[in-house]
């Protein structure tokens, strides 16, 4: 039986942008309010899963041509790199620092190196979750 998923696909096309924006909000708000890399990565994967539900595996791998195993590896590289980078300044492993910078649009902003570590967590969570879901979805019945 051939079905037409017009309503689901139209709702998905609008909702996915809201979900991605919300995940970015959670990711960047993690320093001062609930949120952070883990839940931000989970919500990003939830948005991709919604795309997978509304469309099919082939379309999504075409529009998001990432190898999610490499995304997880890149995240681990980020997290380890921020740890090793602290050796450059002669301080113990994983020592984080922050500073105040004058950015063009945002004005004076506090930038912390913990965000880079959080980026690593985010990428690992997205990579691992999407690898699990795509591997299960590719399975023949």
């Amino acid at each position, binding site marked *: 039986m051939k*079905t037409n998923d017009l309503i689901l696909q139209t709702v998905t096309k609008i909702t996915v942008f809201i979900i991605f924006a919300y995940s970015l909000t959670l990711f960047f708000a993690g320093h001062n*309010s609930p949120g952070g890399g883990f839940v931000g990565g989970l*919500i990003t994967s*939830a948005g991709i*899963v919604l795309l997978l*539900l509304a469309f099919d*595996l082939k*379309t999504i791998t075409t529009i998001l041509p990432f190898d999610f195993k490499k995304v997880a590896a890149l995240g681990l590289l980020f997290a380890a790199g921020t740890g090793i980078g602290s050796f450059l300044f002669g301080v113990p492993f994983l020592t984080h620092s922050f500073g105040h910078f004058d950015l063009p649009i945002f004005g004076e902003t506090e930038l912390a190196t913990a965000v880079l570590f959080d980026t690593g967590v985010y990428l690992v969570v997205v990579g691992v979750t999407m690898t699990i879901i795509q591997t299960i979805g590719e399975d023949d*019945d």
Partner: protein
Amino acid sequence: MFDLLLNISLLLLSLSTLAYIYRVVKGPSTPDRVIALDAIGINLIGITAIISIILRSNSFLEIILLLGILAFIGTVAFSKFLEKGVVIERERDS
């Protein structure tokens, strides 16, 4: 007075959640159970909102949006499984 009203609405929401749980357990068909689980998720959103008012905290506001997204995705996945037998298709037949 205000706290009494909040507690009363919390009680009503938990009674309605109990009624939904009765539907989940007793429901004759699977779509009944899926709809009841979706409505339980929406009730949880309301309970979270009321509890965050009672606790005078706005740290739970993220949870509300999160529960909405997760309830929606879960219901879509369940209904797609009921309709087509698969959750994620490999290739659309079109």
